[in-house]
């Protein structure tokens, strides 16, 4: 198949940036989306053009490194990561718009690469259980109901890709934050720090310049791991509870 891509090109954080159009011939439908970009980059390199920078690593949908907005949708038409998207999802002759995540808290580094370090700082603000190495009791000391363990796991599958922020009209990272709050909050080990965790993470979330959640629900629909929207309500419950106990 032959396709045309319109890609956001931006030399560096200070550059203004613009959409640039490139054509690609006989693209195989079995190519992954990123392999299509690889092929394009080989062309660009040989024609003394600057290859397009994009983040990626595992190409298995698990590391969370990849992620671009394709035709206005984070990670593109299928509910999966950009690296797991294949060209068979597009028609022959299609014109495909490729843009970086847009969010105040995710400044563009170059082309399609953005700086997502804000996520790490949100985790630093409480997204963990304090369990000093070597201090742990036997793993069977505290049984955990299967349902809780399973739900915690579902929330814990977040890969930190940032699609929720890119999809949210408010640039809010509430789903990412809620996923961690839910994961740790459902486990007995997570209880002692439950209230300080939600307060700390929300403060950092706002401090990083992520927007406020107005419950639009785009995040969940764009999330490649299907992190459910009720995690956000879970977060709000924890938050109200914490505030009620005078934490802040």
């Amino acid at each position, binding site marked *: 198949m032959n396709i045309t891509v*319109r890609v*956001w090109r931006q030399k560096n954080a200070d550059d203004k*940036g613009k*959409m640039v159009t490139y054509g690609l011939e006989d693209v195989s439908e079995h190519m992954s989306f990123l392999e299509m970009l690889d092929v394009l980059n080989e062309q660009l390199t040989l024609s003394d053009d600057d290859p397009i920078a994009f983040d990626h690593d595992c190409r298995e949908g698990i590391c969370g490194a990849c992620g671009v*907005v394709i*035709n*206005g*949708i984070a990670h593109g038409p299928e509910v999966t990561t950009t690296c797991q998207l294949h060209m068979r999802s597009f028609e022959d002759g299609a014109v495909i*718009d490729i*843009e970086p995540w*847009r*969010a*105040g*808290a*995710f400044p563009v580094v170059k082309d399609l690469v953005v700086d997502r370090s804000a996520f790490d700082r949100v985790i630093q603000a409480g997204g963990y259980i304090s369990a000093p190495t070597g201090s742990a009791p036997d793993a069977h000391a505290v049984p955990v109901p299967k349902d809780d363990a399973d739900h915690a796991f579902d929330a814990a599958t977040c890969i930190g890709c940032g699609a929720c922020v890119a*999809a*949210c*009209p*408010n*640039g*809010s990272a509430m789903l990412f934050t809620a996923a961690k709050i839910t994961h740790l909050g459902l486990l007995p080990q997570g209880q002692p720090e439950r209230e300080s965790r939600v307060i700390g993470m929300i403060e950092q979330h706002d401090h990083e*310049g*992520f*927007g*406020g*959640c*107005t*419950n*639009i*629900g*785009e995040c*969940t*629909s*764009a999330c490649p791991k*299907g992190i*459910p*929207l*009720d995690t*956000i*309500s*879970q977060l*709000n*419950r924890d*938050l*109200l509870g914490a505030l009620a106990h005078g934490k802040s």
Partner: protein
Amino acid sequence: MAVSGLVMLGYLLVHMYGNLKFFQGRETFDSYLHDTLPHMFYPYLPEGGMLWIIRVLLLAAVVVHAYAAVTLWRRNRAAAGYVGGTRYHSKHNRTGIQRSYASFTMRWGGVVLLLFIIGHVAQMMPNWLSPGGASDSKYERTVNGFEIWWVVLLYTIGLLAVGFHLWHGFWSALTTLGQNYSPTRRDSTWTRIAIGISVLLTAGFLSVPFAIFFFGAGS
């Protein structure tokens, strides 16, 4: 935001109930407005006491709500990381994956609401601006007003705004208060109830002006 919104919503429900008394004729409507309401909890509260409490409460709610709205609006626009006026340059999927139309109208819809309320209160409360002729009977005033097409039109706009605003607002408020237990927005019970409430209110409120304008009720 959520709380102030819900307070106003609460008022609207009562308010609509009141308005529907219109159909029981002038006496009921007027006595409800001129006697019942002002004498709520009388003699525990002075005449009109309850009303004033409500008014203060409402005023507070609107102010808080509008203030919160504007700050949130500002913050979220910055957070969305616009480049040159637009966020994503792609012309495709502008309306996202599952967004409700209502969710787009919250901000400007809210502004419309604000203007509507100001105008409306000015008309209904004292005898200030009274399209179609002033009168001490609020029944009269209502009728006079709603015999004029542009008044009805303005109200229709205002009420559609209310409808849309609550369609998203009601669901949103409950989620903000931690009450959503469904994995997506669309299949949440609250979303359905929200739509229900919005339709009910819009229809309920509109019934009065339409009745007057189209079916000449009350004249």
